[in-house]
């Protein structure tokens, strides 16, 4: 998440450089458009693969996180695991193809989907308007809100409890933007890394720590003496698969898939298999899982 701002700068830079290059090729007409792009009458640089092309090739390429347990991570045997990966495996099974994983980072996942380097990005990808301009999001399969964790001795149960207190946040996260925008009275103490932020809380440098509710819930469970006093703050952000803009066949296939999986409560099974052991009884699966793409 902290890479976001760096990435924006880089993206802006490289984009402007490339637009210049792109303009040249458009004039000279030397751009080697690929066949599917011609057929679809899309932009000349569309490189996505349709559902049929994926099936023919025998593998679907899915971008996932490789270091964000429990959503996408690599276990000690080098196997991809997690909530996103569980879903990715099912996509592979239902397409009848093998899944090839590509390790993505918060900073590069938009580009992966936007350039069609991967067929689908399943990397705990929060839907935002800004991102939706660059990639196409399918229906959501998860939702997150903010959570606030604090010591048992002085549990923060509402925003009012935070008045004139110090709140720890991690730079570049939604928690930082939310509190800066909506709660200017709360004093923020910012850290670059999650590990530093947690250590600051343990050392009592701040009164509470806020980030995605999933993250604080998991942490509080393993650190006795700390409680998540607020577990659903701010508006619910949804998390959805993303594909390259214009890849309608794959987008429709994914939407149908997510709706169909809703009938068998697939994502609850996914939750049980991957998240339940981490969150335990601290979280209610219904507050995280979205079935059939319907957010209430």
């Amino acid at each position: 998440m902290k890479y976001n701002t760096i990435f924006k700068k880089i993206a802006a830079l490289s984009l402007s450089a490339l637009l210049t290059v792109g303009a040249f090729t458009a004039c000279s007409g030397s751009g080697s458009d690929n066949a599917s792009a011609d057929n679809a009458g899309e932009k000349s640089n569309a490189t996505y693969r349709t559902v049929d092309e994926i099936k023919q090739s025998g593998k679907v390429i899915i971008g996932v996180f490789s270091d964000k347990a429990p959503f996408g991570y690599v276990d000690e045997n080098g196997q991809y695991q997690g909530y996103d990966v569980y879903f990715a495996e099912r996509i592979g099974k239902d397409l009848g193809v093998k899944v090839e994983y590509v390790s993505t980072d918060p900073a590069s996942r938009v580009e992966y989907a936007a350039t069609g380097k991967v067929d689908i990005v399943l990397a705990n990808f929060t839907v935002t308007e800004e991102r939706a301009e660059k990639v196409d999001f399918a229906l959501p399969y998860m939702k997150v809100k903010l959570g606030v964790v604090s010591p048992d001795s002085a549990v923060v149960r509402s925003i009012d409890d935070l008045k004139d207190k110090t709140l720890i946040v991690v730079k570049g996260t939604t928690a930082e933007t939310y509190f800066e925008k909506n709660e200017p009275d709360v004093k923020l103490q910012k850290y670059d890394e999650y590990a530093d932020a947690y250590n600051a809380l343990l050392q009592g440098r701040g009164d509470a720590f806020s980030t995605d509710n999933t993250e604080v819930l998991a942490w509080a469970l393993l650190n006795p003496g700390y409680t998540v006093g607020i577990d659903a703050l701010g508006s619910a952000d949804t998390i959805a698969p993303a594909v390259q803009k214009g890849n309608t066949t794959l987008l429709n296939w994914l939407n149908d898939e997510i709706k169909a999986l809703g009938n068998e409560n697939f994502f609850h099974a996914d939750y049980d298999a991957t998240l339940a052991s981490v969150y335990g009884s601290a979280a209610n699966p219904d507050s995280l899982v979205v079935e059939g793409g319907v957010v209430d």
Partner: protein
Amino acid sequence: MQGSGIEVLFLGSNFARLLEGLWVTMRISILAVVMSVPLGILFGLFMTLQNPIAKAVSRVYLEFIRIMPQLVLLFIAYFGVTRAFGWNWDAEFSAVLVFTLWGTAEMGDLVRGALKSIPQHQYDSAQALGMSRMQTFGYIIIPQTLRRLLPPTINLTTRMIKTTSLVVLIGITEVLKVGKQIIDVNRFRYPTASLWVYGAVFILYFLACWPVSVLAKYLEKRWR
């Protein structure tokens, strides 16, 4: 806080995965170094030409590569090229390409500097001794240039090895990324594992760069 965290290094195939990651790092940097040293020498010679066009071309190339952060170059080579032309280059190919372009530019400038630093009287003396142009370069200029080039070249090589950690952003899982994966999986069970994993990564990088320094020392002694 359970355990000291060092056992994390030996869970499952973790250590083998770290070594595999190191091999990826080395593969990319060795290829890039092996290509950019000869190319850089040629580029350095090209830069010393008195031709104004050659000067302009090499200036633009050098400044472009030097001003652009390597990360931007990587993004352009990997994502940008696909965006603009639809060419889907492999991530490792893009990485080797970018590091070779970068290495060539830097190496070229080192060669140019080393050549320029040979005083004019060396050329004049060689001429006075009746040496041909080829002989002057072969016996007088190149041996001196090589000696002056050695330390900065070693410096560039180790810098290239370490800078390859940027390739994670185009999806290549190299040694540092493997380390982060291991730390993340164990961040609840072994909160102190990061110290050990980063320690191991540090030692691996050291083992990768150290032989280069040893080689340099050996050559410097031999050439004295």
